[in-house]
């Protein structure tokens, strides 16, 4: 009897929830894509939710939201776990390819201090190009095999490139090109779309619940979340790239992830980076 009444109560709650959803006002008619307004609203949402934090604090994710974790992190940063990877990245970056060229030849300013400009919209290709993608294209153009997008070598390289760009604010540009605006919009849609058997969107955790616990972990805010990439995650026991972060998020909601650097993930990275414009690069980072 008790169980049944609990079930009926739950159905009432569900029905109510459905009603509230149905009654919610329809999306505003202003459907023009306005990235600048989106970014303003996005940053304002987080600064209002966490009034004590400075804008640049958001790049440190959960460490800015919990005092205990912050103390641990300060100590950890004295001797960060990504140090081995960073050294490896520095070495790899300097190592020329078999044809004598090197990574520095593929990038503006020799690849130093440019992380904040990625991803960018490539008007020839008509698509978003991320740093990870650019690195593998650089390898292939020079007759080298591409790296796995998720860890080790790729994380070491992006980690080193982020390190040389630390403190520089994200400076993602969206050209006045309908394809670029569409990429931004697709990324935004991916971010807010519920997926997987658990019916979670990226926003369910990283917009609606940053600072709350999910099991033993504290959820990071979406604002500034990419500034710290790549990250050493103690949970992974190693380094992970942005691709890895997206894939694990999808899998954790019990969705089948897309291939790394598929169009949707590139657009998502474009969207998330753009709305964090102005926040400094802090990668490589360390997360529990």
């Amino acid at each position, binding site marked *: *009897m*008790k169980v*049944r*009444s609990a*079930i*009926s*109560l739950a*159905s*009432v709650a569900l029905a109510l929830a459905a009603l509230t*959803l149905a009654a*919610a006002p329809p*999306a*505003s008619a202003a459907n023009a894509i306005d990235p600048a307004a*989106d970014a303003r*609203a*996005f940053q304002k*949402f987080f600064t209002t939710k966490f009034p004590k934090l400075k804008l640049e604090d958001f790049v440190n994710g959960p460490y800015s939201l919990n005092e205990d974790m912050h103390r641990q992190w300060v100590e950890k940063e004295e001797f960060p776990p990504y140090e081995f990877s960073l050294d490896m990245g520095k070495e790899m970056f300097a190592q020329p390819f078999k044809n004598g060229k090197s990574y520095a030849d593929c990038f503006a300013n020799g690849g130093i201090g440019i992380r904040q400009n990625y991803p960018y919209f490539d008007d020839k290709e008509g698509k978003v190009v991320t740093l990870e993608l650019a690195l593998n294209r650089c390898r292939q153009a020079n007759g080298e095999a591409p790296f796995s997008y998720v860890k080790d070598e790729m994380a070491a390289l992006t980690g080193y490139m982020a390190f040389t760009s630390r403190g520089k604010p994200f400076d993602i540009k969206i050209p006045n090109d309908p394809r670029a605006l569409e990429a931004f919009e697709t990324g*935004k*849609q991916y971010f*807010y*779309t*519920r*997926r*997987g*058997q658990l*019916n979670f*969107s990226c*926003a*369910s955790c990283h*917009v*609606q619940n940053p600072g709350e616990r999910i099991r033993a972990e504290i959820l990071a805010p979406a604002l500034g979340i990419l500034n710290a990439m790549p990250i050493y995650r103690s949970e992974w026991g190693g380094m992970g790239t942005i691709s890895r972060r997206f894939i694990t998020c999808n*899998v954790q909601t*019990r*969705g*089948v992830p*897309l291939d790394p650097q598929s169009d*949707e993930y590139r657009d998502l990275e474009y969207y998330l980076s753009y709305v964090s414009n102005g926040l400094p690069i802090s990668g490589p980072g360390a997360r529990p």
Partner: protein
Amino acid sequence: MKMTMRLTGSNRPIARLVLATTLLTTMLQITRASSAQAAASVDEFKAAYAVAEAANTQAGALRNQWTATASTLADAKKAADAGNFDAAVALSKEAEALAKASIFQGTSEKQAWKAQEIR
């Protein structure tokens, strides 16, 4: 106990509905069980599996497959390989239901995502 009674009382129509649904499901299960006495055949499994797989492909086109669908499909195949077609058919049906749910999610979210957006 008093509390429970009162709650049930105030939601009587819904409680009745729940009861009716439960009964209906039980009856369905009984019918299914009796028809399953003539054990499911290879062809039945193949048909059920194909339907489930097609639904999952459709979810793939929406870029919204679920990991549970894939693992249930794999379990169905494993059961069929072991010659247990009853289980294989049941698992295929479950996979189909999961795939259909993911299609529903993928389709409704085409509009519903906007409800979560920060403006």
